[in-house]
């Protein structure tokens, strides 16, 4: 199997360059390019539990993979019925919310464990991944706690429905006892910017070793060029858009005139 050979060679190189440790990892990507045809990508994260291959993984060791995307400011708006019309009414602004969040483990990891170890963006409730106290939230006219919770839930729900927030377990494959690999689905809706991958080796419910690295998500291609041009030179962009319209409009009239004469 080609992949396995590739993995072993890469890990072997990693063993040589890294000091003896209990967690060795590698990844196949340093940069993900999103172009017009991008329909999502599976990011490969792989590694070994122990640098000494003879030391096999036992039931007590687990791997936790966390991927955090670049921050963004979002507004959650709630629709309410006014005289039969569903209109946006109350809104809450959440600042510095991760645009992508992924948490994966070999076994079920408890919220207590995440809380104790202060891993990334923590749980307020079981399904929620964000440490709310760390966010800069503009509550506007939303006052009571129960209503605030509905906005928290809505943020998570909308992010989950866009596939940019995920919490899974059992998606990490274990190979030969000591090696692991996981494909992390990066959907095409992810924001561009720097992503951080945190890996934790957990033994007996304690973090035994951890490792982090970054990768970039970048947009490329003609579409990206048009997008950034429209933001950087809006007036020139507007004038070019107009020029295209004018030229096609003029030639349309010209072609039509000849067409009619025939």
């Amino acid at each position, binding site marked *: 199997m080609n992949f396995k050979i590739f993995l072993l060679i890469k890990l072997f190189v990693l063993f040589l360059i890294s000091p003896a440790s209990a967690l060795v990892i590698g990844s196949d990507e340093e940069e993900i390019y999103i172009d*017009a*045809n991008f329909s999502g990508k599976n990011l490969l994260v792989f590694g070994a539990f122990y640098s000494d291959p003879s030391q096999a993984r036992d039931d007590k060791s687990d791997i936790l993979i966390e991927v955090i995307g*670049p*921050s*963004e*400011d*979002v*507004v*959650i*708006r*709630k*629709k*309410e*019925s006014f005289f*039969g*019309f*569903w*209109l*946006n009414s109350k*809104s809450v*602004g959440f600042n510095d919310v991760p*645009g992508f969040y992924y948490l994966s483990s070999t076994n079920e990891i408890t919220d207590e464990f995440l809380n104790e170890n202060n891993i990334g963006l923590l749980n307020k409730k079981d399904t929620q991944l964000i440490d709310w106290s760390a966010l800069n939230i503009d509550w506007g006219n939303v006052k009571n706690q129960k209503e605030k919770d*509905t*906005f928290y839930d*809505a*943020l998570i*729900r*909308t*992010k989950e*429905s866009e596939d940019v927030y995920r919490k899974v377990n059992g998606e990490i494959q274990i190979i030969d006892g000591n090696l692991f690999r996981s494909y992390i689905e990066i959907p095409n809706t992810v*924001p*561009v*910017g720097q992503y951080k991958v945190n890996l934790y080796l957990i033994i007996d419910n304690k973090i035994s070793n951890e490792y982090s690295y970054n990768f970039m998500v970048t947009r490329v291609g003609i*579409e*990206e060029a*048009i*997008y950034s041009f*429209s*933001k950087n030179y*809006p*007036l020139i*962009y*507007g*004038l*070019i*858009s*107009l020029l*295209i*319209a*004018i030229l*096609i*409009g*003029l030639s*349309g*009239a010209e*072609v*039509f*005139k000849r*067409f009619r004469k025939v």
Partner: protein
Amino acid sequence: MSIYLPIAELSVNIILLLSIGGVVGFLSGMFGLGGGFLMTPILIFMGIPTNVAVATSANQIVASSISGTIGYWRQGLVDFKMGGVLLIGSFFGSILGVWIFSRLVVLGQIDTVISILYFALLTSIGLIMLIESSQVIRDRVRRKTVKRKIHYHNWAHKLPFKMKFYKSKLYISAIPPIIIGFVIGILSATMGIGGTFILIPAMIYFLGMPTSKVIGTSLFQIIFVTALVTLLHATTTFAVDAVLAFFLIIASVIGAQLGVLAANKLRGEEIRALLAIIVLGVATKIALDLLVEPNEIFNISVIRALF
């Protein structure tokens, strides 16, 4: 086969895009309408964000109104002076319109306001067309011809700042055309329409312009209003999608030519009645979207992405 729209940030089918542009262009060529009032809501139904639909529609109307104006100009049916006076009002109207638009975007009410405006516009257009076409059909059956008054004298003649409009054979105050232009400017900027549907009756009934000069003159001034609206949107809301506009323009210019040819060969009233029903259908869909409780009452919008 699909194409990624860089500003709308989604992929759409090219064939679907060209068909929409072609059909809207055909209808606008056939009936001498701008077509923006159909283009914008259809783009929104396709999932294109409201602000992109409005701004891009304005860009598309620049092309179709240029094509149209040239045809009328060759026949000497454009009153440039009247167009210029209308434009003074439109200039300020479109600046105010884009300002209102960007405020509504910040407040998160743009979708709702656009929906309500479109519901009102399409319902009235649809009903007027339906009533008019059914009357024409009825009159045709009874072999009656409707006589129209050629010249009106109304309040537009009594206001100050009177100007001579030789082409239209009018001597009226400049204030009514400036006000009409102002209103059209606001509507164009907020709804992504040229406003022919409002402009033409307003020019006939309020200004008393001869019907023959009205379409050419309104198309002429629409070129400049929609051009200004395109530039204002490009620089303030960043919502003009050049790729989307390109495909819509190509298809609509071709569609409009075929529409004009078809108009010369077909009897319009039945098709006009059909169009009225389509317009009312679109209005009903917009109303339902506003009235039916949505599945998800919360929505998210990213206001700042960190690069």
